[in-house]
Every structure is written in C-alpha cells, then in structure tokens.
C-alpha cells in the first residue's frame, strides 16, 4: 500500500464516522423537534381547555349571582354578576386569539358567545324590572338560555378534549417513534461504522501484512545471498557481538551460527600473526577506531575452535546508518592456505623453470671443458714427451677448475642459508652473467656491467641470483638481436621512505614497454613470451625483492644508447627478512 493510499484510508476512517454521526444527530434533532411540536399542541389544548373551564365557571357565577338576587332581592348578590362580566369578555378575547387558526373551534366559540349574549340580554332585561323576578316563565326561559350556553360550552370543551386526546395520542406515538428512530439509528450507524472500520482496518492490515511479508522476503533473500557467498561472512553488532555467520564462516571458525550468536567476535574469530603467533588486532576495534573499510594485516592466521590454523585474507567494513552512526560491522574473509601453498609450489616450479632455462647453458658450459679433458686424456695416453705431458696435465687442471666453478655456482642456486648473509652484489651479478654468458652470446647480446660502488648488502644470494637471472634474461629478450644490456650498480642514499641500500639498474636497447604491459608485469602468469615463459618470473622476483625489504620499478630508459626499458631494483643494505618467509617454499 502506498503512503497516499494509506492517508486516504486514514481520512476515510476519520470523516465517515463523523459524517454518519452528524446525519444521525440531524435525524434525532428532527425527531425531537417533532415531539416538542406535539407537546406544544398538547399544552395549547390544555390552555384552551383551561380558558373554557374558567369561562364556564364565570358564566355560572353570573347566573348564580343573578338567581340569588332574584330570590333574595339582595343587591349584593349581583356582585359576581357584574364583576364577572369583564373577565368573561377577556376570556372570550383570549380564546378567540388562541383558536384563531381553527375555524371549527371558532364556530363553536361564536355559538357560545351568541348564546351567552342572548342570555345576558335576557338577564339584563330581568334586572331592569323587579317584577320579572317572580315570573316563573321568565325564570324557566332564563334557565333554558343558560342551559344552551352551558351546553355549547360543554360541547366545545368536549371537542377540545377530543382534540387534546388526539394530540396526546400523537405525542405518545411521536415519542415512541423517536425512541425507535434513536435505537434503530444508533444500531444501524453503529453497525455501519463497525463494518466500515473493519473493512478499513482490513485494508490497512492487509497492506501491512503484505509489506511485512515483502520485508520478510527481502530479509530472507539477503540472508540467502549472504549464505550463498563463497567467502566467509560474519556480521557483528556495533558492540562486537555476533549477529550472523554464513556457512563458510561456520566452517572456518568451527562455530555454528546459533552457538556464536551474541558472543563477542574475539571469542569466535581468533586471529594471530602467521609468523609470530602474537594475537592480531581485533577488526571490530580497528574499524571502530578508523571508521572505514580495513584489510587485515598480511600474514594473518585464523585459529578455529578445534585449533586448526588457516591463513586468511580478510576485510572488515563498518555498517553505517543513514545518519552516519556505526550500527555494526561486516567481516569478509577467505581461507588462503591452499592459495599460499599453490603460490609456494609455483615459486618452486618457477625456480625449476629458471634452472631449466639455464640447462642448455649449463650443459654447454660443462660439456666444453669435459670435451677438452677427454681430448687431453687421449693425447696423454699417446704422448711420450714429458714436457708435452706436463702441459696437457696443466690444461686438464684448468678445465677441471672451470667445471668445478660452474658446478659450484649451480649449487648455490639451490643451496640457501637460513639467515641472510653478506652479499657482494657486483660479484653476484658477475657470477650470474657467467652462467648466462653462453646464452647471451648466442642471442648476440652484449652486456656491460658497471659497478659504480663496491656494495655489500645482507640477503639471500640464491634468491637474488634467481631475480637477476630473470631480469637479465628478460632484458636480453627485450633487447632483441643484436642487443645491448647495461647493468649499473650504485649506492642508494636513504630517505624518509627507504633505508640506505643499493640500486641495480638494468637497461636494454629494445623498444621499451607500453603502460598497458607495465601495469600487468608483476601479475602471476602474465607473459609476453607466449608458450616460452611461465609468466611467473617477475611475480616471483618481486616477491623475493619485497622479502628483502626492497622494490622493483619498471619504466623506460632515459639513456640515449639504451632505448628500451629500465628495470630498477632497490635493495636495502640490511634486510629485515627471515628465512621462514613467503618465498621459501612450503609444500605440505
């Protein structure tokens, strides 16, 4: 349900009951007015009846006064007769006003009035002559006239009474109707409002249920996505307690989500430095401190619940609410133990590939002196002259020395000291060039080595030999045929970002490298040599140099004689590396 629709429903739920109740109140008011009207008519009728009764009583008073006078001759008896006359006219006038709208009643009243006037004329006639007092006929006539008056009065009173009765009936039925209307109206409106509210509530609650369902579905979908991610995911609340773990995280930590929920991350996610076994900084603390996405320190190992160590790659990110508050932390990590092993195996295979590339050179280097020694042996067997024999033996010794020198430098490719030793880079490069000489000669590459300074650094000679073998062979390849390579060794003065050390620059006379290629050079399996290269040489070389605390930069040469690339290898004078680090192959 959209907000607009919800507001419409809200308006309906407010306005409809008010309008309905107003209508009900209107109907009730109308009914009350009708009842009041009936009541007024009843009162009116009562007033008329009262007037009639008073009129009759006054007329009777007059007649009684007149008769008393007739019988006694006492004039005081006439007081009521005279005093009533005026009020009687007043009552007539009052009655005329009250029934002015009813011609039937008016007719009745006029009859009373006429008959009364007749009687009154008769009474006055009698009073004018005292002799009439005893006239029985007259008295009888007077009585008849009075009877007619009173008959007319009674008639009118009866009519009024009937009218009152009718009004009374009407009032009672009106009151009943009012009650019925009140009860039925209230019941009807109540029912209507109930149904209406119910339907509105249904609508709103339906929409609410629908959105709850959608929310639930969306939440479920998100959980499913998180569960399906191939990397381990742990979601923590802001205080570092665990809220969610996906199955990969369960596998790697050894904790089930329901067991881990609510526990502190540090308890479940135990990380140590891969090399020193010192506990590593809790990522929750680090994220809280830095308030940004962090990658875990290199060489981090996760200790699972069962004690299994796994090397992991990890990143942690704050979960920020819309107002920037940190509401939680999400950790994503993966087991890179296998990857590390594979990398180590690759390093070994690259080492073998380097050796393989050298094999032809080596075979040549050894076969040459061996061939000579064979020849000398043949000559010695047949030579009788002592001086010649001596000469042959000396030559044979020289060739043997050369063979030994070659085999020694071969051995040093694989024999590695456990701790860094002093390495004279100039000598190291010369020995590398000795092994590569044949191959470079064959390719027509002229190598110039310039040792500007005689520099001794700490390092692992076999690994450095591997690096420079790679770099020189790459340079020879790039230089083309015939090509030139310049190797310069110079002291590197330290600055803020690097310690004092040595820089080896290898220039070639090739075409240089494009930025696109340069950006990929250090990626494993990247090669420009087709099936000839493993694509691992530079990647491994970088690893070795970094292990020594150094760096490799590849750019284009600025020397006029060497138009190609320039590889700069910086190595610090003192290495921080230990023999147990990455490029020492570990094959489990």
């Amino acid at each position, binding site marked *: 349900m959209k907000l607009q629709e919800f507001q419409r429903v809200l308006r309906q739920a407010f306005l409809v009951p008010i309008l309905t109740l107003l209508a009900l109140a209107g109907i009730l008011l109308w009914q009350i007015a009708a009842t009041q009207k009936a009541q007024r008519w009843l009162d009116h009728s009562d007033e008329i009846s009262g007037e009639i009764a008073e009129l009759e009583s006054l007329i009777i008073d007059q007649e009684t006064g007149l008769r008393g006078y007739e019988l006694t001759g006492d004039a005081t008896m006439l007081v009521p007769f005279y005093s009533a006359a005026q009020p009687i006219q007043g009552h007539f006038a009052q009655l005329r006003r009250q029934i002015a709208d009813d011609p039937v009643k008016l007719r009745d009243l006029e009859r009373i009035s006429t008959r009364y006037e007749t009687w009154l004329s008769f009474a006055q006639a009698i009073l004018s002559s005292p002799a009439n007092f005893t006239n029985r006929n007259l008295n009888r006539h007077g009585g008849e006239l009075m009877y007619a008056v009173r008959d007319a009065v009674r008639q009118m009173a009866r009519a009024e009474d009937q009218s009152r009765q009718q009004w009374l009936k009407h009032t009672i039925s009106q009151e009943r109707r009012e009650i019925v209307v009140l009860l039925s109206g209230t019941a009807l409106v109540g029912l209507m409002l109930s149904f209406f509210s119910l339907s509105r509530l249904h609508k709103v609650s339906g929409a609410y249920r629908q959105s709850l369902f959608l929310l639930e579905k969306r939440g479920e979908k998100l959980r499913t996505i998180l569960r399906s991610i191939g990397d381990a995911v742990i979601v923590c609340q802001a205080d570092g307690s665990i809220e969610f773990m996906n199955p990969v995280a369960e596998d790697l930590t050894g904790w089930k989500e329901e067991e881990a929920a609510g526990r502190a991350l540090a308890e479940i996610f135990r990380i140590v430095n891969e090399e020193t076994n010192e506990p590593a900084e809790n990522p929750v603390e680090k994220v809280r401190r830095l308030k940004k996405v962090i990658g875990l320190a290199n060489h981090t190992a996760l200790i699972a619940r069962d004690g299994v160590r796994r090397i992991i790659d990890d990143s942690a990110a704050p979960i920020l609410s819309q107002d920037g508050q940190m509401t939680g932390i999400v950790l994503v990590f993966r087991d890179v133990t296998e990857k590390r092993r594979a990398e180590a195996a690759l390093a070994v295979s690259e080492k073998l590939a380097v050796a393989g590339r050298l094999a032809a050179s080596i075979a040549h280097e050894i076969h040459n002196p061996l061939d000579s020694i064979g020849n000398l042996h043949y000559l010695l067997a047949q*030579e009788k002259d002592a001086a010649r024999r001596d000469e042959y033996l000396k030559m044979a010794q020289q060739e043997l020395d050369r063979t030994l020198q070659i085999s020694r430098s071969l051995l040093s490719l694989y024999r590695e000291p456990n701790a860094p030793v002093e390495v004279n880079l100039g000598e190291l490069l010369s020995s590398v060039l000795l092994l590569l000489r044949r191959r470079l000669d*064959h390719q027509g590459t002229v190598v110039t080595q310039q040792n500007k300074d005689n520099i001794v650094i700490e390092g692992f000679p076999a690994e450095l030999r591997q690096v420079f073998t790679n770099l020189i062979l790459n340079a020879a390849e790039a230089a083309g045929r015939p090509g030139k390579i310049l190797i310069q060794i110079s002291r590197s003065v330290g600055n803020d970002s690097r310690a004092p050390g040595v820089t080896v620059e290898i220039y070639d006379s090739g075409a240089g490298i494009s930025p696109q290629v340069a950006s990929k050079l250090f990626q494993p399996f990247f090669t420009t040599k087709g099936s000839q290269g493993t694509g691992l040489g530079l990647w491994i070389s970088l690893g070795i140099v970094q292990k020594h605390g150094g760096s490799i930069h590849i750019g284009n040469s600025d020397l006029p004689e060497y138009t190609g690339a320039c590889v700069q290898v910086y190595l610090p004078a003192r290495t921080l590396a230990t023999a147990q680090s990455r490029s020492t192959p570990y094959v489990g």
Partner: protein
Amino acid sequence: MEKSAPFTVLCVDDEVLGLQIRKALLEHAGFAVITALNGQEALALFQSKNHSIQIVLLDYLMPGMNGGEVALKLRALDPEVPILMHTACVDLPDEVRGLVDDVLSKGEGPQALLHRMQQVLEASQLAAKRGK
C-alpha cells in the same frame, strides 16, 4: 690417416683453451689445423685459403655469429666443403642440422670425433668422384 697428404681442417670455437687442445689432438691425428675464434675470422680464413681447406669443424654457440650462420655463409662460398657441427648445444635447430654434413655432440670423446671426421671426409670424396 695418410701422413703424406694431410687434410687441412678449419676448427672454429670461441673457447681458447678448448680450441688449443683440439688443435693438439687433431695435429696428433695427422691433420693440418687452422683455428678461428669466431665466425668472421673463420669466413675470412676460409676465403683466403681457398680450396685448401678440406673440412670445417664448427662450434654452434658463439658470440656474434653462431655456427648456423657461419655454415650458411660457408655454403655460399663453397657448397661442397664438408662441415661437421661439433657442439655442446642440446637443442640444435633442424635447419642447421640440414645445412651441415654431420652433427657431433661435445663430450663424446676424441675417438668419436676423429671417426666422424673420417666418415664425413670419405663421404665427400666419394661424392666428388661421382661428380667427376
């Protein structure tokens, strides 16, 4: 080998000591030996001693011009001259193998070298007779 008419061999190798020893061996075996330390020198010598060189013993891996290139140029100068490629190189290209009369690996010993040289020489003399 017939001492009266020694064959002249042009021996090309960049290893000074090895070349010296091989020269001693070949002279001991009765050859007249001319040595060259690289391709350019070999070609120059071959041209100056026109037709007096009966066989060329050629190394493959040499600075500057390799054995294959030298063989190609020698063939241009003299299509008939027998060339024995004598090398420590393990992966000799096929086109080079096709260019020379025989290939011998260094380290097989002096007897093998002398035997192969003889074979190559005999084969070329036979061909020469047939040609005539």
